[in-house]
């Protein structure tokens, strides 16, 4: 542990990911849940970068770039959905959105 290694990156990644997951599980506000998902995606990037650094590879960075691209796309669509939801149901409370049952 004395020298910086991928293990550090992985621990940080795990911590961020699990914080994000707990947020998704516990929060009721769709917007916050959305931010937590971004957090989780970011955590994945951290581990990818860590491996890339340790192994002198560029593949990890390339993958992280794709994850960022997909996260951006997800942000656009997800926020669009949030807009549509608030217009129709006038709420951002995930517990009020039960249309999935129908």
């Amino acid at each position, binding site marked *: 542990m004395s020298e910086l290694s991928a293990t550090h990156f992985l621990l940080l990644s795990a911590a961020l990911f699990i914080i994000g997951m707990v947020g998704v599980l516990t929060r009721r506000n769709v917007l916050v849940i959305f931010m937590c998902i971004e957090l989780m995606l970011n955590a994945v990037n951290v581990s990818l970068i860590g491996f890339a650094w340790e192994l002198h590879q560029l593949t990890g960075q390339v993958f992280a770039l794709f994850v960022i691209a997909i996260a951006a796309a997800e942000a656009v669509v997800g926020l669009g959905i949030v807009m549509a939801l608030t217009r129709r149901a006038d709420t951002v409370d995930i*517990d009020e959105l039960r249309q999935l049952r129908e």
Partner: protein
Amino acid sequence: MERTVDWLVVIPLAPLLAAIANFLFGKWWIRDRAHWLAVPAVGFSFLASVAAAWTVLGHHQLLRQPLYTWISAGEFQVPVELVIDELTAIMLLVVTGVSFLVHVYSIGYMHHDPGYYRFFAWLPLFVFSMVMLVLASNFLVLFVFWEAVGLCSYLLIGFWFRRRSAAEAAKKAFVVNRIGDFGFALGIMLLFTKVGTLEYQAVFEAIPRLSSGTVTTIALLLFTGAIGKSAQLPLFVWLPDAMEGPTPVSALIHAATMVTAGIFMVARAHPIFLASPLALWIVAVIGALTSFVAATIATTQFDIKRVVAYSTVSQLGYMALALGVGAWIPAIFHLFTHAFFKALLFLGSGAVMHAMHDELDMRRMGGLKRWMPLTYWTLVIGAAANAGIAPLAGFWSKDEILVSAWVGGAPLLALLGLAAAFFTALYMFRAVFLTFHGQPRFDPHQLHPHDPPATMAVPLVVLAIGAATTGFLGVPPEAGWIHHALEPVFESAAHHEVTLSLTLGLAIASTLVAFAGLWIAYAAYVRGTLSPAAVAARLGPFYRLAANGWYFDFIYQRYVVRPLDAAATWLWRSVDVGIIDGAVNGSARIVASTAQLWRRLQTGLVANYALMIALGTVVLVGAYLVFGSTLFR
């Protein structure tokens, strides 16, 4: 001698193509021009048949054309091959010739029918099926087209399917035929298991190796098919009802196709029947009984087409009698002549119907001779030929059958045939006199009966010439042209020495009997010296027996159809609805109720779904740690 040629295929192909074209394009394109295809196609087929028959009958050459192998499964090979020998050549001439005339006649008869194109699709299809049936070289192909003929008859009898009676008649024809076909199929299967092949030649060569019991079973099963198709005694009930179809169809079914298939099949399979005297005897008895029973029924009918229909059954009985006593050539000879005069009778009664605006009851006709001389004279020729009046066609062939039956060891059956001949003359001339003589029993000012148009008249005349002259093909008896022509096919058949005195004696007897029938009909329906009603009353139960068709329909309805119907209803109500549907619906209901239970898992709350995903992740990672990593090892 045998020759392989490649033009035989046009004989079945021409009608088939016409049928397909009319079927596919008839409704929206061909419509009223349907006969432009069908009639030339069948005519062409007839010309090709004539060419084939010329070679076969003239030079006694076997023509054959292999088409393709239909089934090839190990040892079991079913090639589709067209073979023309002398028997097939004669049949081809009859089938295509009469069919051609019927087609021509139909142009006039079916004019203005909304289903015109449909009629000219089924009619060539019928011809195609029948032609293939006679051209087949093995029992399986024969069976396939045997069934195809049944299908076509169903389609054509039920041609006016909107009429309930026509639909019923078509169904009846199909179902009754199915009973016979069931036996036929069983016979073919038995044949295959015993012999291992279905090729005619190979089967016939293998017959002597089989036990007599097996051969008898096979022969009887095959004959069951013929009983159904050729309307023999227990299964003849469909044929009179087949009158519901258009008259040209009746003519086609009765004269050229369908009913002759059974006779042809027995003649084709004669080596099998020859090997079993018992089967032959049964064929003869059924034939004789059929001819007599049907003749008595015909005497009591008032529907002109029914009279002719029962007459067909009766004539088919003669043919079966001939087959049964081993008189193969007379049977085919009678089939040949019968085709002409029966087609003539049907087309003639069709012309009468046409003139009378679809009136079928002879009690409402009479005196038509005045307005329809051509129809009258052609019909008289047909009736006389059917009645066996010398020297018309029916006389020669029928007489020969009676002589063969007499010398073939069944004089009793010959006498039964003679009795049937009496009734034949009686009902034929009864029909002619009721229809054409006496005073009109309808209003001549409302109906204006007239001779039919040319398309219908020409076939009548041609057929009348045929009915008058084809008998001479079999003169002198046992040594005529047709006997020499067919000899190679039936060379294994037994020959009887017939004395001249017997031939002459039976000829005179049958002529006398026929004239007796004619005279009684004349007395009863023209001169009025004999009251038919009084005779009917005097005969009492016998008359009622005949008038009700010997109660065959009644018995079938009560003891076969109704119990079957009840059983089927029971099966439907209890087994199908109760058990089968119950099982299906029950399992569906179980699934549905279980699903109702599981449905509660679906809360619709995204948070719960996310929770489940997280739980799954935890479990999976835990499983990896336990089983996949080195952590616990």
